[in-house]
């Protein structure tokens, strides 16, 4: 049998799933030397030392075994305390919190726990790359809802409602958003909450960037009256505490959902790594100052990046959360893929084409400003040079004017 013949044995859903658009770009970028990358969806900071030290201590003391499926009780307590302290959300540490291997696993568990083949999962886009594929792996049908820069990438109840059908079961929300950096305005959030209740939708709310906000404090969806029990809150330590490689996340929700998710987790994962759990206890207990320091730095970079893009003539709306800027590059006459590819080849700066996050991302690129100020300044200089060159080469067009 030809090697390819084995593909016939594959589950067609898996076989036909295209690899992540990010992945393709990664292959191109990783072969080049001297690249300044703004394509990385993770902090440039290393995990704060006190957190690393807690893990080293735990290893020295011999914490090397399984934990309970739900995670260490002390960690669940800290998670509950953290949620209560920041937003007044009350979760029972026994029945309503599950510690997972990254928020990625929590997301997978949430969707697998509720999606039955044929169920529609409503996903506003551009969005983080895994919601659709994960829904499809459990037989769900992703229904994408476009958002647009004209509304500052807000998800509106009106747009979501248009996408609903009798098979709609789950709405996936992500705010602060990857890739746009948008946070939800209060009014829109409340209207979405009303819609979810009126149309009986379960909401999987990915709030992994909740600590990284640069204006109004974050309102968790579950804090809106009537939403707590129909929301599965997804969060993790990857972004706020600079702990991506530790693989630690969690879900909080009503006992029925958490119990179901725990069942899958118990058979597929057993538990999150104990080393990461020990570190997470320390992070949640006393990482507040380190988070605040990092947020302060991101904010400065954010202002620099947004202002610089606008000065180049590439409109960039002000992202109020996460660590991404999402400038509109269509004024250069290039598609976002062309822009990203040529920028990489000609100036060695990696950004991710917006189309990788959904059709509404076309014409935009995602720039992560989780990079040192030195790298960021240099990258912005190179991008400005590139934009000047590209736009002056356009026949019959004026070079891009500043602003818009």
């Amino acid at each position, binding site marked *: 049998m030809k090697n390819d013949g084995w593909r016939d044995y594959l589950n067609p859903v898996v076989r036909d799933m295209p690899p992540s658009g*990010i992945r393709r770009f990664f292959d191109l970028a*990783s072969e080049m030397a001297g690249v300044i*990358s703004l394509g*990385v969806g*993770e902090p440039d900071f290393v995990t704060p030392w006190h957190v690393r030290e807690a893990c080293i201590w735990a290893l020295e003391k011999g914490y090397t075994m399984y934990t309970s499926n739900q995670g260490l009780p002390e960690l669940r307590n800290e998670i509950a305390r953290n949620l209560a302290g920041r937003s007044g959300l009350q979760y029972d540490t026994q029945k309503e919190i599950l510690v997972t291997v990254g928020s990625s696993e929590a997301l997978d568990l949430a969707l697998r726990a509720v999606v039955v083949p044929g169920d529609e999962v409503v996903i506003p886009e551009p969005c983080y790359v895994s919601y659709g594929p994960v829904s499809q792996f459990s037989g769900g049908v992703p229904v994408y809802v476009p958002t647009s820069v004209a509304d500052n990438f807000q998800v509106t109840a009106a747009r979501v409602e248009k996408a609903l059908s009798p098979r709609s079961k789950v709405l996936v929300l992500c705010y602060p958003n990857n890739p746009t950096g948008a946070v939800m305005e209060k009014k829109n959030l409340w209207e979405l909450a009303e819609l979810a209740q009126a149309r009986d939708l379960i909401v999987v709310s990915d709030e992994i960037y909740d600590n990284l906000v640069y204006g109004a404090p974050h309102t968790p969806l579950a804090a809106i009256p009537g939403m707590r029990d129909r929301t599965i809150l997804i969060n993790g330590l990857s972004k706020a505490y600079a702990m*991506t490689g530790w693989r630690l996340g969690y879900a909080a929700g009503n006992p029925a959902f958490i119990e179901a998710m725990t069942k899958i987790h118990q058979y597929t994962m057993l538990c999150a790594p104990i080393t990461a759990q020990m570190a997470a206890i320390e992070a949640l207990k006393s990482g507040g100052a380190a988070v605040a320091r990092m947020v302060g730095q991101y904010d400065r970079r954010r202002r620099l990046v947004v202002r*610089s893009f606008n000065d180049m003539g590439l409109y960039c709306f002000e992202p109020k959360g996460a660590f991404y800027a999402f400038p509109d590059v269509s004024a250069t006459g290039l598609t976002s893929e062309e822009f990203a590819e040529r920028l990489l080849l000609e100036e060695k700066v990696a950004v991710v084409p917006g189309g990788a996050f959904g059709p509404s991302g076309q014409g935009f690129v995602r720039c992560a400003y989780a990079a040192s*100020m030195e790298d960021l300044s240099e990258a912005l200089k190179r991008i400005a040079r590139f934009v000047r060159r590209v736009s002056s080469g356009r026949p019959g067009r004026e070079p891009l004017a500043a602003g818009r």
Partner: protein
Amino acid sequence: MNGTEARAILELLEGNARLAAEEVGRMLGLDGSEVGAKIRELEERRIIIKYQTLVNWERFGDEKVSALIEVRVAPQRDVGFDAVAERIYRYPEVTGVRLMSGAYDLAVFVEGSSLKEVSLFVATKLSTLEDVLSTTTHFVLRSYKHEGVILDDGEADRRLVVAP
């Protein structure tokens, strides 16, 4: 401009003195000329004292010798420790002077090109000062961290080039 913004300017410049006012403005969402004016004001008030470069002389190949000298002094009427501190910090060999609580009074940092030079300075200049009661010299063997900066090569960026 408010105090928080001025503090942010100081923090940025403390981390990197070479930032232009324009760049600082971009990072803080302020006007570059406004930032420039504020910086000049901070310089005039000697809140910004000096722009320096932190050099790892050892890596450059220079063998400098530095020492921490614990100095016990007899404080003087009216001027306390200030007069003797001034007598000490006037010497160019002295790179730092701090008044301390505890077992001794002044922590004096001295730099020279050899052990002999530093020892000689302590013996002939410091300990002979009228109000100096005693000195204890500790030579620095290695500097790991200076003014909040780790002198080692630090932690490389180990992230992949593109990640979700």
